[in-house]
């Protein structure tokens, strides 16, 4: 159930590989791993996007992510989970968020992973500011709904 807010780029697949090979990982009991990775696109609302800056509320962000992580672990009986989220300046293709959950069964893994992403997108205090390819900048006003 670790959560991390990261100031610099991360490789989601490398992080998952490292995380799963920890000696204390619940190896033999895992039957299902569900992962979501959100990546910065080079377009939004029909405009080209050149860069993005992600702001957050230090303390509240981590506290909120830890709370939903613990809630998902309890609600779906997860064996483990991991949430990583970038802040700072991002370039197109940079990973923004990783949510991974480990479970004995797939139904729980799928549902918990999606629920965590929706909770994160609707309430975790992060804000995106886009720099467009024409040089102008704008705040992203709201996230699309995921269900």
């Amino acid at each position, binding site marked *: 159930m670790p959560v991390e807010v990261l100031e610099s780029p991360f490789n989601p697949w490398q992080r998952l590989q490292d995380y799963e090979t920890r000696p204390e990982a619940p190896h033999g009991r895992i039957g299902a791993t569900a992962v979501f990775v959100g990546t910065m696109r080079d377009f939004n609302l029909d405009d080209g996007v050149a860069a993005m800056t992600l702001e957050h*509320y230090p303390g509240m962000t981590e506290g909120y992510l830890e709370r939903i992580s613990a809630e998902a672990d309890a609600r779906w009986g997860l064996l483990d989970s991991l949430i990583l989220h970038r802040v700072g300046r991002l370039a197109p293709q940079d990973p923004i968020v990783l949510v991974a959950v480990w479970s004995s069964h797939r139904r729980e893994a799928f549902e918990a992973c999606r629920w965590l992403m929706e909770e994160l997108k609707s309430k975790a205090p*992060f804000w995106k500011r886009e720099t467009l390819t024409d040089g102008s900048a704008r705040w992203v006003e709201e996230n699309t709904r995921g269900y």
Partner: protein
Amino acid sequence: MWVKVKFFASLRELMNRADARVELPEGGSVEDVWLAASDGREKPANVLAAVNMEYVDFSAPVRDGDEVAFFPPVTGG
């Protein structure tokens, strides 16, 4: 009593500050904190509030020493 105030993202730009410290009478609410910290600016639609890093309604009470944050809808993930 005194409370710490924080503004984030577009609201920080609109208010032209990230932090403030305001004094208000005991028994005040988050709404009162907004009035005291906003120099009379109208509250934008959709603005959210947190007290001590927990989401609250604008009617929630605040206490001396609280940290009250205002911010626009979140756009992470």
